[in-house]
C-alpha cells in the first residue's frame, strides 16, 4: 500500500513535468495546425541554455528558467518567421516533413556545438527531499511540478485575457475573419510558435534538473509530448494537464507492475487507443 502511494506520487509529479513538455506542442498544433516533429529538439536546446547559465554563470536553474524561455522564444520566433511561415498553408505532410528536417538539423548542430557528452544540471539541493504521508518526495520534482502548473495557468491567462491571446484564438478559428479585424498573420504565427518553443525551453530546463542533458534527449520527448497532447485533446492546450497526469501515472504503474521495459508499450498504446476510440482526446468534445 505504501509502495502504491509512493508510485502514485512519483507518477503525478512526473505528470506535471510531462504536461509542461506537451503544452508548447499542443499550442502550436491546435492553433497553427503545425505538427512539430522538432518539438523535442527545442526542449533539448532549452535544457542546454539553462545548463550553460547554471554551469557558466552560476545561476540557479529556477532563476535561469525565465532567461531560457526568453532565448527560446526568440529562436522559435525566428524559425517560424524565416522558415515555417513559408509552408504553413501547404498540405499537412509538408509541415511534418519540414519539421522533421529541422529536428535533424538542430540535433546535428547541438552535437557539434555541445559535444555528445551528457551534462546534468545539479544544484546543491538536487537530492533534497521530504516525507509526505510515508512517501519520499524529491524537492526538485515538486518545484518542477509547481513551475509547470504556474506556466500552464499563465498560458491560460494569456490566451483568455490579453489582446495577443485573443488574436491567437481568433486566428486559430478563422484566419480570414481575423485578418479582417487587423490581425497580421506573419507576426502572430511567429509569436505563437515562439510561445510554444518558450514553453519547450522551460520544460527542457526542468528536465535537465531532474534528468540529463544531451543532444539526443529530443526524439523520445517528442514522442511522449505527442501522446500527451492527443490523450488530453487538441481543442484546448490546457487539456495537456490531464494528458500528462494520465501518462505519468500509467508509466509509473506499468514500470512497477509489468516491468520498466513496457512503459513505451503503455504510452504509445494509449496514444493509439485514444485515437481509435476517442480521437478528440479524453476531454475533447466528440466530433
Amino acid at each position, binding site marked *: 500500500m505504501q509502495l502504491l502511494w509512493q508510485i502514485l506520487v512519483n507518477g503525478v509529479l512526473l505528470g506535471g513535468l510531462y504536461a509542461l513538455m506537451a503544452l508548447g506542442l499542443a499550442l502550436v498544433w491546435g492553433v497553427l*495546425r503545425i*505538427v512539430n516533429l522538432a518539438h523535442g529538439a527545442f526542449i533539448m536546446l532549452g535544457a542546454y541554455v539553462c545548463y550553460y547559465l547554471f554551469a557558466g554563470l552560476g545561476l540557479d536553474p529556477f532563476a535561469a528558467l525565465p532567461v531560457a524561455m526568453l532565448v527560446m522564444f526568440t529562436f522559435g520566433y525566428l524559425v517560424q518567421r524565416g*522558415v515555417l*511561415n*513559408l*509552408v*504553413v*498553408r*501547404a*498540405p*499537412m*505532410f*509538408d509541415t*511534418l*516533413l*519540414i519539421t*522533421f*528536417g*529541422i*529536428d*535533424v*538539423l538542430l*540535433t*546535428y*548542430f547541438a552535437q557539434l556545438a555541445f559535444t555528445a557528452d551528457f551534462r546534468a544540471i545539479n544544484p546543491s539541493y538536487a537530492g533534497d527531499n521530504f516525507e509526505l504521508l510515508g512517501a519520499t518526495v524529491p524537492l526538485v520534482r515538486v518545484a518542477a511540478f509547481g513551475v509547470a502548473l504556474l506556466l500552464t495557468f499563465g498560458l491560460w491567462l494569456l490566451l483568455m485575457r490579453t489582446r495577443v491571446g485573443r488574436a491567437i484564438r481568433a486566428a486559430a478559428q478563422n484566419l480570414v475573419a481575423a485578418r479582417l479585424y487587423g490581425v497580421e*498573420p*506573419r507576426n502572430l*504565427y511567429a509569436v505563437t510558435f515562439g510561445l510554444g518553443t518558450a514553453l519547450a525551453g522551460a520544460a527542457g530546463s526542468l528536465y535537465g534538473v531532474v534528468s540529463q542533458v544531451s543532444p539526443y534527449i529530443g*526524439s523520445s520527448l517528442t*514522442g511522449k509530448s*505527442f*501522446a500527451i497532447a*492527443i490523450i488530453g485533446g487538441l481543442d484546448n492546450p490546457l487539456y495537456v494537464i490531464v494528458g500528462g497526469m494520465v501518462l505519468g501515472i500509467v508509466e509509473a504503474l506499468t514500470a512497477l507492475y509489468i*516491468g520498466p*521495459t*513496457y*512503459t*513505451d*508499450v503503455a*504510452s*504509445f*498504446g494509449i*496514444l*493509439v487507443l485514444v*485515437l*481509435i476510440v476517442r*480521437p478528440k482526446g479524453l476531454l475533447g468534445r466528440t466530433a
Partner: protein
Amino acid sequence: MTLPVRAVIVAIVVALLAAVPSIAPAIIVQFGISALIMVTLAQSWNIIGGYTGYTAFGNSVFYGLGGYGTAVAMVQFHLPFAAGLALGAALAVVFALLLGLPVLRLRGQYFAIATLGLVGVMTAIVSNLDIAGSNSGLVLPLLKGDTLFYELALALALLTTLTVAWIARSRFGFGLIAIRENEEAAEVMGIDTTLHKVLAFMLSAVFSALAGGIHAYWITYIDPAGAFDVTLNVKMIIMVVFGGPGTVLGPVVGAVLLSAISEILAVNVTSFAGMFFGLVVVIAIVFMPRGLTDVMRRFREVGWRCFQENVRTYRV
C-alpha cells in the same frame, strides 16, 4: 508510345539491371540493393499515401514485421529464407488488416499520428519479446555473396512498380483516387471506401514486408530500433513527394535520386551526412512541395519563377 514498344523498352532496362552483379564492382551492387529496396518502399507508400491520399507514417511497421518474420523463422526455427519471407509478409498483412480497420477511420493528421504511434508500440513490444532477441536483436545466418539479394530486390521493385501501374488504370485504382480527392463523394457514389482503403493498406504492407525481409537477411542483423526506424517513414515519404506522388514512375525517380545523394554523402562525409539530409529536406519542402515532376513541368512554362510561385502559394 504504344504498349508493345513500351514493354520492349522496359524489358531491355530490366535485363540490363539484372546483369549488373556480373559486370559491376561490389560497391555498385550494394548501392543497387539499397536503392531497389527504397524503390519498393517508396512505391508501397505510394499506394496508400500517393493514390489513396492517406499519409501513413507507419509503413516501417510492415518493414519491421517482414524483417522480424524472416529473422525469427530462420534463426529460431531454422526455416529456409523463402519460408521466412512468407511469414514476414503474412504477419504484416494480418497487422494491416486488424489495425487498418480501426485506424483508417481517422483522417489527415490523426491518421498520420496514429500510424506513428503504432511504430512506437511495435518497437516497444518487440524489444520485450525474447523470441525476437529482445532489444539486442537477432543475427541471421550468413550467406556469402550479394547476387541473390540484388536479383530479389530487383524482382520485388519491379513487381511493386507493375502493381502500381496496374492500380493506376484499374477500377480499384480509380476508387482509391476518388477517395483521395473527396471521400464523402466517393461514398455517395457507391464506392466501398473501407474495403478499398484496407486493401490498399494490405498491399502496401506486403511489399514493405518483403523488402524488410530481404534487407534483414542481407545485412545479417535486425534489432527493434533499425527495423522499425521512424526516419525510414520520412525517407519513404520524401522520396515519393520528391518524385511525384500518385504517379507510377515518380517514386522510382525519387527513390533512386535520394538514395544516390544519401549514399554519396554517407561514404564521403559521414558526420555531415545527417546535417545535409536535414538541410535537403527543408529546402526541398520549401521550394518543391509538390515534387520534382511538378517543378520540371512548370519550369518549362515559367522558368525559375516556379520556385517563387511555390513559396507564394503556401506561405502565410
